[in-house]
């Protein structure tokens, strides 16, 4: 944010509230009547500009590449390299040499994880992988190899940062810097010359630019050679995923109460493999949003996540073997449908009737895309679009969405943003999720049950 704010200040856009401390999403210009702005999560920006909700956007060109590699004919034009925020998306793997071409012939699928699923898909096609699975992640991608992914896409400043994590860089997929993007139709038909000139005047003109297209830097031969046989743990070992982020202190408290020791969790050094005092357990720290698919796919046996993410997963995959094994009773939130105070409805039924009568398509923004889709389907919206978001969802109403599916604890953030709840879909707390399989090792099953029992006992005692 600071370099962008600096450039906009020099360009005299007058967006005085655009700074690190501001909690506003909407910005008004104090100097120009032709500018208003909104703050989004970076990866939402190319989408919002491409669909025409905004004329101009500033974001990392990695997110532009992630969008345009899937939608090459979208209405998005990159008009200026802004010259800061340099880095690259690298393909990386754990070092270990395989027989040449083994990767293209082996079974099962090559697993590619990362926050850039479209780039990952294109990489797999370019590598002519015979069979592959893409794991789209919310974050913590570096935690996955070698146990839970064969290739991982990492965004870093340089290759040295990749190797410092213990990875082999398989090559740069795309280099990126902050860039100025515009909607193609706006560029063709709308006079934005003053605004564009104000930016252009203060950006240095010449940057060493990487002109090569997607994947030109990836050494496919080296990638193939670095792939390794699937890293399997002992069949009796329980693979447990613990959450990163703000949930860590809660999990730590419950573990302490249950008499389970975990070293270096939460970790000040970003340790993703803390040690646990229970025998036969292997722990990794990953994003709670990514856990359901990982457990269902058999990469973990147990995970501590939110019930909201479990339900989102089950709406996408109704036949998933995943189940809630214990309600941990902290992190209570409600998952709600939200509209602006100006929307003349107070229930979902009224909202559905309103859009049906108007013959309009309803735009539903949510981080929980599958819950949002399920909400629209079960409430029989005639026509609707789910707008996936990666945070700051409140900012979408009313200009960029009509309804939000959002979680809330007290509702105060919603009130501050002039929003009202029209439906409560369900309540969510943290929980242990897991899968049981008929062919699971009895020792592992016993260990899993014991772990759940220890936490249940701690909860009951408190």
């Amino acid at each position, binding site marked *: 944010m600071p370099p962008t704010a600096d450039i906009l200040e020099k360009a005299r856009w007058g967006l005085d509230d655009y700074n690190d401390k501001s909690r506003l999403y909407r910005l008004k210009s104090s100097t120009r009547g032709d500018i208003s702005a909104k703050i989004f999560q970076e990866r939402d920006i190319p989408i919002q500009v491409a669909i025409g909700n905004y004329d101009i956007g500033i974001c990392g060109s990695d997110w532009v590449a992630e969008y345009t590699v899937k939608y090459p*004919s979208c209405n998005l034009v990159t008009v200026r390299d802004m010259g800061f925020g340099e880095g690259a998306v690298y393909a990386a793997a754990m070092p270990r040499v395989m027989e040449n071409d083994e990767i*293209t012939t082996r079974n099962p*699928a090559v*697993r590619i994880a990362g926050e850039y699923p479209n780039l990952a898909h*294109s990489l*797999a*096609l*370019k590598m*002519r*992988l*015979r*069979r*592959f*699975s*893409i*794991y789209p992640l919310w974050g913590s991608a570096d935690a996955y190899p070698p146990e839970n992914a064969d290739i991982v896409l990492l965004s870093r400043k340089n290759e040295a940062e990749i190797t410092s994590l213990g990875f082999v860089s398989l090559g740069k997929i795309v280099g990126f810097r902050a860039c100025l993007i515009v909607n193609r139709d706006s560029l063709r038909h709308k006079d934005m010359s003053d605004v564009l000139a104000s930016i252009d005047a203060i950006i240095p003109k010449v940057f060493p630019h990487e002109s090569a297209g997607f994947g030109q830097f990836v050494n*496919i*031969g080296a990638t193939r050679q670095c792939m390794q046989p699937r890293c399997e743990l002992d069949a009796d070992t329980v693979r447990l995923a613990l959450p990163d982020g703000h949930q860590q202190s809660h999990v730590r408290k419950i573990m302490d109460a249950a008499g389970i020791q975990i070293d270096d969790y939460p970790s000040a050094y970003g340790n993703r493999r803390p040690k646990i005092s229970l025998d036969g357990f292997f722990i990794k720290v990953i994003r709670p949003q990514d856990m*359901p*698919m990982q457990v*269902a*796919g*058999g990469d973990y046996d147990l995970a501590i996540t939110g019930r909201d993410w479990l339900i989102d*997963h089950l709406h*996408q*995959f*109704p*036949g*998933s073997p*995943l189940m809630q094994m214990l309600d941990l009773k902290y992190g209570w939130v409600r998952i709600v449908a939200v509209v602006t105070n100006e929307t003349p409805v107070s229930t979902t039924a009224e909202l559905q009737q309103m859009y049906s009568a108007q*013959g*309009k*398509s309803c735009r539903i923004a949510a981080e929980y895309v599958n819950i949002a889709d399920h909400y629209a389907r079960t409430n029989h919206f*005639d*026509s609707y679009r789910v707008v996936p978001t990666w945070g700051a969802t409140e900012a979408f109403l009313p200009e960029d969405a009509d309804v939000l599916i959002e979680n809330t604890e007290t509702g105060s953030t919603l009130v501050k943003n002039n929003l009202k709840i029209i439906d409560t879909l369900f309540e969510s707390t943290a929980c242990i999720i897991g899968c049981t399989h008929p062919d699971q090792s009895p020792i592992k099953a016993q260990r899993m049950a014991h772990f759940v029992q220890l936490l249940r006992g701690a909860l009951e005692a408190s």
Partner: protein
Amino acid sequence: MQIERCKGCTDLSAQDMLRFRSVEAAFQETARSYGYDEVRTPTLEYLYLFTSAGTLTTGMLRRVYSFLDWDGWSGERVVLKPDTTIPTARLFIEQMQQQGYPARLSYVTNSFVFEESATKARERWQCGAELIGAGGDIADAELISFACDAVKRMGIDKIEVRLSHVGLLRELLASLGLNHTEQDDVLSRILDGELSALESMHAAKGQSLEALRLLLNTKGDSAAFLKNLRSLFASDIAGVQDELSSFIKTIEMVESMGLAYQIDFTCGKGFEYYTGIIFRLFAGAVNVGGGGRYDRLVETMGGTSAPAAGFGLYIDRLSALINIDHLYIPVSQRVSLSVDPSAMKVGCEVADLLRRAGLVVLMGPNGTVAHDCGWELQVKQDEPQIVLFNCATGERNNCSSAIEAVALVGLV
């Protein structure tokens, strides 16, 4: 709210379906006469069926409809099938490989590929055939002959065949010193229509690059053209001799069939599995089908090595070219039957007799008359129970029985 058809997808009207069924019937009759058994593969397949090296080009793979299925929590995707040959080869490997060679299979099916323009079809129907387990010039000639006969049976006589040979292109690429992956990449780009791919090969050897440029930029219309090329390049470039000789034999067979043809090395866009001859059929300027030899596909997909070749005919394009006037049922064979509810039993008997006699009967309640009918038949409880009108002349006949009514229509 206006409910719209999905972009790039087409409704087939009653007239469109007449055309569709006519093309389908002509193809199926031809297939039976060539000994090809009909099969059908599912619309949904696993993506990995198509991502194996040597199947579809990267350009095609970027345009497939792929998604996570309802049980796709492993992250593995399924697709709406973008191609028909690959699923048919899978079916062969799964069910027929043990039954011996060759297998002659035909199908009428749809496939799905994303197109940017809403005016281009994203769902395409084609009738096709695969000859698995037979190789050589005679097998190639059988398929070209089959494809041409099917199109002629549809009433389209002027057909031109355009031929290419991927095996020859591969040999030339190999002689440029490209490894297998690089060959796949360049061939994929050439087959996707990107001829500038050649110019990016700075380290390429002069003679082979010259030969490739000549092949891709020149079109011939005789075996002599290929013989000339052989005399220019075959002695310098190892491997080219065999491929050119094989191609010349096939061309001579096409000549002996009396087919008009052109040699065009750039045809074959989008498909990487071809290994030998490729052909496309043109009716005027319209490309109505094409196919080729894919001797390595079955093995690549995990089956036992087997030579194979096949073709597909594009139903939508052929439908637009055929004459269907003869398929409309004439008014004189259409009867509007109105029945008094109390005489329904007799009415049904009359309708049954007329239909068995080959007439079209449009039944309705008493007093209604269907359009476009040459006859109006009234069935009542009271005498005269059956009355027949000739709509063209206005003549009225009171009939004593259903058989008499049918006899009057003149078709019994």
